[in-house]
């Protein structure tokens, strides 16, 4: 029960948000992420944002892999 997809918050109106997912937009319940602001990325599951996406952590993960990849080439 875990199919969820990242989306970008385009606008907010109280507890309702408009989120962009792959060039499509959908109205999403934002009750569970009261800290979200426009341009944040959130994880959307069944029409509800269930968590914020921590961009810094994502970068850490990818940077580690990038370094590993570069070491492989050298």
């Amino acid at each position, binding site marked *: *029960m*875990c*199919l*969820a*997809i*990242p989306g*970008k918050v385009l606008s907010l109106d109280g507890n309702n948000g408009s989120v962009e*997912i*792959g060039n499509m937009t959908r*109205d999403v*319940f934002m*009750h*569970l*992420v*009261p800290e979200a602001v426009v341009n944040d*990325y959130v*994880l959307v*599951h*069944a*029409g*509800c944002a*269930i*968590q914020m*996406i*921590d*961009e810094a*952590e*994502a970068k*850490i*993960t*990818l940077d580690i*892999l*990038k370094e*590993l*990849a570069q070491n*492989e080439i050298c």
Partner: protein
Amino acid sequence: MKFVDEFRNNEYTKILVEKLNNISSEKMNIMEVCGSHTMAIFRYGIRDVLPSNINLISGPGCPVCVTPQSYIDTALTLSEKGNVIIATFGDMMKVPGKKGSLTKKKAEGADVRIVYSPMDCLLMANQNPSKKIVFLSVGFETTAPMAAVTVMEAKKNNISNLFFLTAHKIVPPVMEALVKEKDLIIDGFLLPGHVCAIIGSKPFEFLSRDYHIPGVVTGFEPIDMLQGLNTLVSSVSKKNNRIENDYKRIVKTEGNPSALEYLKKAFNRVDSSWRGLGRIPNSGLEFKGEYEDFDALKHFKIDYEEYDGSPGCKCGEILKGKIKPPDCPLFKKICNPENPVGSCMVSSEGTCAAYYRYHKDTK
């Protein structure tokens, strides 16, 4: 797509696969409990790149598939009422009850509608004032908070024609039930990333603390899955029995406090039946008293008796990883993807359904 494409980079997946194949040659049993992990493993062909010493077991699958037959039969009975619209996630349509499935009822004329989100039910209720909308509210901790939000919005907006037939389940208790099985050897768990997004990694610490089994909170993109497997295999081989988090961009140790608050406000913990596994204490969620007017069982005065009812089905043993699908007497002969009996075949990527597909050429 941001936060998707980067985590499918095949240069990185190649490195992670290579690493995974060079950690340990020790035989080990790894279990993943989340249906979405089962799907991701199939989608990316992850079994093909695992070293042969790793046995990957699919656990209790998804909450739709472990929903007991009595729940489906109740939904089917409600669908027969002329003024009822059944609103359901697509996953539920093919789950078999004693009298068929929602797909069959729809074909017979019942008003069954697929919704992507419970919030769509609020609109449906407003647009159909003379009808009673019954939402089949199923799901793990990932989905339960939005059911809470929906029922609260319904109450706030005085919506009187929306009802919930709830069957929400909780993950940690079923995992504890599994690890308590004496003859079950699981060396490590891939922990469900999106359940953990809500409840955090703390509720799974009992695995490490009380049972000395490691677990890794794992996401669902290829890089996430391979990373999680790498960490877990490494933990198992080094006998490092900790709970690790390999999905930090989504999962915090304490989870999502807002979501947890909604769960607390709307639900009580209750005992619950899992198809193929029996009754597990404290593993289900039911609406609290102040939302009982939205409970379908109460509104329609249904005397609900739970039953599993899959005679001869060995899903329980398969879900525990004790036997393989061909060991079940119903496999292929009676139980197949077109006519599934138990939960392992109901889910298109359940252990039996996947086995059926992969080995269809084998006699």
